[in-house]
């Protein structure tokens, strides 16, 4: 009896095998999120997920190097502009998931849909003996002299968008003031947060919110403040490559990512879920004031913006 069951199971597995091709996902962090999504997806569909997780830059570099013979089926980046560029290059497969009905229009296009959304904020250490900041400009005040870090816009796409948006909305005076107030530019996002946690610095100007919120949840002395004058958001586009050899499986993966279960996994990492009907564990998109942001204009003058910024903060 046992033997026949095993035989049956094996036969069934073999018969089903062609339908169970792996789907390969290249994704920016967090690692925990893609692990949860991959496990949940495999449990539901039986399709195995092969994951490569790195920074957005590394993911994009690998895609470019592999362009002659692409490996990935699904790509999840932390920069919406990368999706726009890949769409313009004709690399993406158009797909509208039935589960994207509750995703607001500005978080989806024909070829990409947000997995979740992060925003930039002030990450402030309440033990730092500084007054709680309410807006970006508070960090240019004497109380924060030599007490502020900022991610490098040349290394962090979201920090670049913040710089571009602030300059477009308010001119570059507040950034100049920030530089003359002794703020330092400290590498990529994680590097800017650590000095604030230990108390070497009091606040991060432009911290990635979900990382700081997760740190706060672990008991770190850090408070995430969304500035009164507004901030920029970074939707994380999920896309299917046109070159995918398993487009049906890839579509199923996008469906799962946008399912309630998938979006709850997104919310658990303190990101804002892309679907408005899934609750966030933090202030949602509707509650955030956003700075006006013109993607095309910002990226069109990226070099000049970065050069100007580097000049302001040159020592």
């Amino acid at each position, binding site marked *: 009896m046992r033997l026949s069951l095993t035989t049956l199971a094996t036969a069934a597995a073999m018969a089903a095998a062609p339908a169970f091709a792996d789907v390969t996902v290249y994704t920016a962090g967090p690692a925990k999120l893609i692990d949860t999504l991959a496990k949940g997806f495999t449990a539901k569909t039986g399709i195995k997920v092969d994951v490569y997780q790195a920074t957005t*830059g590394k993911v994009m570099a690998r895609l470019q190097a592999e362009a002659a*013979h692409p490996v990935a089926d699904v790509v999840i980046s932390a920069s919406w502009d990368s999706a726009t560029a890949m769409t313009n290059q004709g690399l993406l497969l158009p797909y509208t998931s039935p589960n994207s009905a509750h995703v607001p229009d500005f978080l989806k296009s024909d070829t990409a849909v947000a997995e979740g959304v992060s925003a930039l904020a002030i990450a402030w250490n309440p033990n730092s003996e500084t007054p709680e900041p309410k807006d970006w400009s508070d960090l240019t005040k004497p109380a924060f002299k030599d007490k502020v870090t900022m991610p490098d816009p040349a*290394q962090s796409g979201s920090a670049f968008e913040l710089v571009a948006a602030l300059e477009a909305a308010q001119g570059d005076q507040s950034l100049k003031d920030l530089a003359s107030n002794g703020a330092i530019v400290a590498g990529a996002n994680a590097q800017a947060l650590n000095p604030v946690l*230990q108390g070497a610095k009091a606040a991060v100007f432009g911290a990635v919110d979900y990382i700081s919120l997760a740190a706060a949840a672990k008991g770190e002395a850090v408070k995430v403040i969304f500035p009164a004058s507004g901030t920029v958001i970074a939707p994380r586009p999920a896309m299917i490559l046109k070159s995918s050899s398993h487009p049906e499986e890839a579509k199923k993966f996008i469906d799962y990512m946008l399912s309630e279960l998938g979006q709850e996994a997104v919310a658990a990492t303190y990101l804002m879920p892309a679907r408005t009907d899934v609750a966030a564990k933090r202030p949602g998109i509707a509650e955030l004031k956003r700075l006006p942001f013109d993607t095309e204009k910002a990226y069109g003058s990226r070099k000049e913006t970065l050069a100007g910024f580097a000049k302001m903060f040159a020592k």
Partner: protein
Amino acid sequence: MRLRGGTEQAVLAALTALALAIFVGLPFVFILLQAIFPRIGAGSFKDPFAHFAGLVSAGDLPIETANSLLLGVGTVALSAVLAIPLAALRALTRLPGAVLWDLLFLLPFMVPPYIASLGWILTLQPAGYMQQLCGVNLAWFLFSVPGIVFVLTMNTFPVVYFALSRSFTAIGGRYAEVSRVAGATPLRAFIRVTLPLSWPSLAASLLLVFAMAIEEYGTPAVLGTRIGFRVLVTGIDGSISDWPVDLPKAALLSLVLVGLATLAFFLQRRLLVRRGYETATGRAAAAPPRAPLGRWRWPVLAGFAIVAFLASGVPLLAILATALSRTISGGLVPANLGLQNFRAIVANSSGAFSALVTSLGLALITALSAGLLGTLTAYVASRTNARLRGFIELMAALPNAAPGVVVALGLILLWNQPALPVTPYNTLAILLLAYVFLLLPQPVRFTTAALHQIGPSLEAAARVSGASAVRTLGRVLLPLLLPNLLAAMLLSFVVASRELVASLLVLPVGRQTIGTFIWSQFDQGSVGLGMAMAFVTIVVTTLLPLTVLIVARRAEAAL
């Protein structure tokens, strides 16, 4: 003097050249192609040199090149100043606790430089561990060019210390005694005889330090960014750290870096080539007469203790303190300390454990492959007249200071060609290829230095006695090379087991290495968890080679 090339030597040379072409030459060709043709990834040769003008006019290139040089030369100088006296005292005097100091100076090898730098930041920045314990901070020093050179030196000077103390022991025993008999004082004998005869070891190890310093990413990245100190490697990684990425720029900058290292390599060879340094004669060397320290005993011990504390004590304690902290902001108070991060590592044992096994296994195979290929390369290059010698020397020089990111890029471009029927890409073998490429210079340098000190008369004697070239290599040279080769292989093992930059880009899907596992924790703000994994790794990578060394020493003693 070189031996005549026989058929055996020609075959050996051809095989070595073939292996080098596959491991080094082909990936390098693709790095070159990427530097010239921006769209080579898509298989297109359009717009060659399109980005050259922009790169030069931006003005970054000369500054970054100058900064890289400054960092390399500074680290070499400080390493020499520190390591020469320490090695001399270790080799030529009756230093109490000699083996303990060796162990303490071995530890900095085991600490990945980017993690050591993070440890230094957590210790020296305002409100850091030093301020929590003694009320002052040294941020002004740490975040400065001398600070970066200091942190790098703490990580690299042991290379010079170990190479020199071995060399001093070997030379001091015989030649210094002769000069003493001729009436020289111990100091004079050291300066006039032992030190000059150790020149090959010194030059080889300083060259290695130079290459390590200019190819190091983590330290200048975490310490240099905030003072605007940019070097070539940070420029390379910056161009692919976030959207938009610039692969041609990365490839071009890395060619400059490789150029610098190759220049240093040929400079070293030019300095060595015209003089004889043969000190190994095959006769058992007498143990050197070690001078008593007398009243210098305590100052010398204090000096060793201070260096050991700075090189291994501070980084290790900082890593441990962070790994034991519940939160970073909680600081060093008993209520904030616990084993939760180590427990989390055990709980995530599948991820952490498989990363450990993957990295250690790959590192072992890397050490063996690089050791074999490196020895053959050094042998063919310095002992034969084979026609392929020039090519082999070039191939051996190319990986010098090649940055991991770009090596990874070259490997993807090469091995992901659609025309290939089988490919190592997206398997663990691609990591092996990357590690062998990056680490090949280690065994080549170490065995070349050793070959320079072995007189050709030994091989001539073997050949006259009728031994074939392969037999001479295996029975005469290899045993004499073994100590140096073992050291190079241990170094390769340790560096490969924690390699991050290349691994991150060519990681096969669904795999983690130790380096990427730790990085992934840091990237998401879990510094404590990353440090716990780093600590476990340091313990494992210290104990494994230590066991090998002890066994090797026992075996040596038994002979």
